[in-house]
């Protein structure tokens, strides 16, 4: 992702992310999503746009968010988010849609939507509860609190730490490891894991 200054998910950029993902060639064995913008993974939705657009247009924008984030769960290969900078709102919604999150210990992650009077409507409420359980999820969702990458690993919101500046490299190394395994088996396990409800009724 390379849309300075903060990789804000305005409609054109979000569409570009969706197109990039759709153009992943068949036979790809792992996908890494990272940022070319220093100190930022993605800062989330386009707030000034949301503040002024009419309601129907915004609802269609949130639908687009759901589609693009959800596409990371539809790719036929494992998806890895390399989070080496701030990962907020839509940025974390996207990262939560990936199979694996690699983070630097000092990066900030959070879903501040509730502090803006709205909700994380791109699927993150359901994804974060399923990722980490109700216990940490409702605190993070209702308070909008930002946590560090190290805290994210402690609670299972991310599963791997890498040094700042080396996160994308670490994610690519991990992708190469995954790519070395039997692709049909990896795809089957990935598909199965994505479809399980971890904290069911």
């Amino acid at each position: 992702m390379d849309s300075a200054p903060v990789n804000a998910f305005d409609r054109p950029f979000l569409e570009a992310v969706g197109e990039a993902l759709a153009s992943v060639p068949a036979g790809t064995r792992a996908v890494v999503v990272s940022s070319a913008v220093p100190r930022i993974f993605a800062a989330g939705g386009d707030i000034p746009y949301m503040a002024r657009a009419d309601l129907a247009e915004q609802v269609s924008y949130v639908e687009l968010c759901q589609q693009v984030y959800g596409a990371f769960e539809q790719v036929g290969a494992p998806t890895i988010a390399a989070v080496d900078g701030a990962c907020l709102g839509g940025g974390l919604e996207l990262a939560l849609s990936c199979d694996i999150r690699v983070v630097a210990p000092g990066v900030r992650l959070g879903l501040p939507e509730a502090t803006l009077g709205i909700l994380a409507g791109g699927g993150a409420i359901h994804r974060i509860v399923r990722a980490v359980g109700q216990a940490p999820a409702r605190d993070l969702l209702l308070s909008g609190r930002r946590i560090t990458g190290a805290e994210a690993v402690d609670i299972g919101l991310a599963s791997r730490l890498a040094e700042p500046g080396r996160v994308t490299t670490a994610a690519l190394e991990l992708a190469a490891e995954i790519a070395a395994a039997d692709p049909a088996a990896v795809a089957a396990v990935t598909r199965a894991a994505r479809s399980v409800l971890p904290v069911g009724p």
Partner: protein
Amino acid sequence: MQASTPDPRGVAPRPARDPVAVVELAAGSATDALTELVATLAALPPGTRAVLLRLPSDAAVDRPVDEDSVTAWQQALSVVEDLPLPTVALLGDRCTGVAFDLALCCDVRVAPGTVVVRAPTPAAGALPVGGTVARLVRAVGQGVARDLLITGRTVEAPEALAWGLVTRLVPDPAAALELAASLAALSPEALAATKRLALGASQDSFAAGLAAELSLWRTVRAGANAQEGLSAFAEKRDPRFTGPDGR
């Protein structure tokens, strides 16, 4: 028990028409304390926008004695969990028995660094009948929950924090009140919708969940508080959200 009572242990008295209701679980029989709690919550002032529930270390540890009291417990705990307001539990040094169940029903759990937590289980001399099993699994996942439920082990602060049995460790209990006040300043409808969706996320299908997120997003966005929050962000100022009482 009474909402917004001055705190004998160092939390300052709250102003009149306070958006934070401070409620303390009574000592004595747990069934009586739950009944009293439900009555207090049903009578919260209309301007209430967050609840701070104090769960002292000496809170009751007895368990329901018959089928009727099991039902009463389950209903009372659901009332707490389903409150359409953000709820902050303030734990003491020990959290077990009905305090453990109540803590799991709250959205945020604040505790001192000295806290020890123990699920009410047979190994701890209690049956987890108030919904403890389902809530604990949904809270922390099967990986940790079955150990806690089967062995009744005591959990100290660092593990409790990592698993979410407590979500924040604080040196001073006053931090819990500040946190509740900061939640009370947010948009009530955004919080209520987020909470409802989050609770539903342990039970609904993912497709239905996404549809619900979109639908509630639209409802909340159509309100004045969402406009205020987004405009304030765009204009780089602090938002001022309005409660149900117009304040």
